[in-house]
């Protein structure tokens, strides 16, 4: 009987160790892990997939993560004539140089900044739109022959923005409509796409899962850590402090997400 008990304990230890090692071997996704593969941009961290427009490819890689938590996820360009670009970027919501309450506030500030530029026209003031089940803040603007649209959404305590630039308004409109193809990166969510709708036609929140791939990620906890780490006088030290704590949140969130599935 005692032998059986020992064997049981040993089995639990080995099993636990194996489980732990298995968990450790699964790489933790990072905000800047986005890749273009098979003509689809995919970000596991942001649970985001975006099939490239027909005839497009990945452009020159952007910089690595900044000390202020800003990430260039990818740049997309047409293969042939250079007529437009798409830049997908993310900004940590709680660690930017200039914090914004939400995507709408960020877009409002952006609108103010663009309005102040000589020769820039705001073609479409900031407004909320639903694209593929996600809520975006959108602003369109143009100047010196470039037509641009910036659409920003909030995912996992980050402002994820799609920055579209085109030589013509028609091409810009096509690119905006192309965002209908936005989907989810996780296997279980692939195929979930929804058409673009205006703010007035937005679907109820219950139609779609939460945007965060790990729903337990607590933005408020992030904010508390940010305040705590801001006591460090040097920016980089504060960044390290925050990242260390944020990572613990990510690990917890990943575990929560893993248990859910």
């Amino acid at each position: 009987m005692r032998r059986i008990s020992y064997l049981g304990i040993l089995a639990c230890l080995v099993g636990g160790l194996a489980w732990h090692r298995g968990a450790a071997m699964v790489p933790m996704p990072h905000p800047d892990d986005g890749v273009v593969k098979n003509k689809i941009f995919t970000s596991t961290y942001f649970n985001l997939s975006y099939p490239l427009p027909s005839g497009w490819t990945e452009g020159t890689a952007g910089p690595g993560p900044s000390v202020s938590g800003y990430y260039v996820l990818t740049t997309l360009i047409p293969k042939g004539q250079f007529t437009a670009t798409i830049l997908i970027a993310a900004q940590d919501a709680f660690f930017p140089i200039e914090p914004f309450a939400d995507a709408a506030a960020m877009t409002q500030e952006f609108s103010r900044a663009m309005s102040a530029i000589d020769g820039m026209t705001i073609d479409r003031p900031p407004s909320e739109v639903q694209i593929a089940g996600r809520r975006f803040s959108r602003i369109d603007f143009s100047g010196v022959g470039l037509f641009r649209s910036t659409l920003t959404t909030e995912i996992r305590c980050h402002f994820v923005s799609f920055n579209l630039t085109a030589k013509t308004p028609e091409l810009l409109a096509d690119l905006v409509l192309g965002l209908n193809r936005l989907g989810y990166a996780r296997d279980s969510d692939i195929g979930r796409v929804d058409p673009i709708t205006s703010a007035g036609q937005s679907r109820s929140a219950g139609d779609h899962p939460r945007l965060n791939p790990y729903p337990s990620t607590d933005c408020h906890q992030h904010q508390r850590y940010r305040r705590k780490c801001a006591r460090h006088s040097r920016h980089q030290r504060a960044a390290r402090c925050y990242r260390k704590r944020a990572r613990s949140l990510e690990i917890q969130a990943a575990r929560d997400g893993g248990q859910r599935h």
Partner: protein
Amino acid sequence: MTNPRSVHARILIAVVWAAVATALSGSVVAQTVQDPGVRGGPPGAGGPLPNLIPGGGSQPGQPGFFQAAQVFFTSVFSVTGSINDAPPGLTNGGPGLGPRYNLNSCAGCHAQPAFGGTSPKANPQVAVATLHGARNVVPPFITLNGPVREARFVRNPDGTPDGQVHELYVISGRPDAPGCNIQQENFPAALAANNVIFRIPTPTFGLGLVEGISDLGLTTAFNSNVALKSQLGISGQFNTSPNDGTITRFGWKAQNKSLLMFSGEAYLVEMGVTNELFPNKRDNETTPSCQFNPLPEDMTIFGTTDPVSPPTGSTASDFSTGIVNFATFMRLSAPPTSAPAAVYPPTPAATASSSRGSVVFKNIGCQACHVTQQTTAINGLAFLNGSGPVTLNPFSDIAVHNMGYGLADGITQGNANGQEFRSAPLWGIGQRIFFLHDGRTNDLLQAILAHASPQSEANAVINNFNLLPPQSKQDLLNFLRSL
């Protein structure tokens, strides 16, 4: 009677011809986008700030100090001070040159378009290599029509990071350096090992105003366009002093805290002159046989006159060290003034183009880093006649940004890593000859395009530039050459 088939053929030919002509004209337009070149006319820089405080009695005050400091800046140095290499109109700088050096005066490198500026058209580093019998070979990256350059090695022989300046020349062979036989660095080998990078002189005009911007002022300007930067893939950070944590701002990587530090470092590293900030010769190879002066060679004058230099008429200058004079020259110099157009004399069409180019500059996002306007602190320029903040247009945020693989030099200085550089101030760019940190091009268009490469923060802005119609690109170039 006209054959309808021939009519159709003529129409077809006309249409094809028109299409070809249109295509050709388009390509001509595309090809004609070009840097208008160095703006002519009088130098837009080189003089003192307009509102310096005049002296009382027999003292010439700040204007006199500026003039005397300019004499220091333009004077020419030798090993012991016994050789006067100063051309007519300039003065003998005294002792301290070597044992390794890049040139023998400040103004030799900082010469375009006036004393205090940047690399001149004819590179003085060619002639100085063998001046007075010095045994040097001009390195392959130094040419008569190329930029003045300093060289830095990326790695030490053991593979650890180097990053320091390795001076081009030695004093061996000169009559004022008898018995000194140190050898020149092996630059061909360093080039072959891909272990050497270059820097060209930064212009020094108006830097007193840059020094006068508070850290709060810099961060406020930096933060004011954070939304714009986030739309363009731009982040950036400030370089900071390890001594007090405040923002450093001078040099290609904003690695120097103050103009005095900037002067002291350059005095030692570029000419070899030890001073009160850098009192030791830096070369480990230095032997007593190459040591000819008591150190530091530049120090405060405690008598009424410098034993080498004659009185300047400015007591403040006479009692100050060389590095204080250099710093004063930069601190009291006026910023470059822009012109109405890229050409001199300006034409209405050229002026209109530059004006449109200003709009292009802001619309495509150049000003996200090349911030057009900064403001000094209230007390930042107390030495000026007329207190209060001064608004300046350096076209720089003074922050460092990742410029990608294409411009990377692999040198880390403070917070700035091997790919990061300070947003180069663009004021006065209209009269500069060479561009980018290593002076790799004298074509402004190429300099713009070189901003884009993998991992560069400027990629989105350069994409915007590439999307522009040719006329807008030309307008931008014309605007920049008007600065």
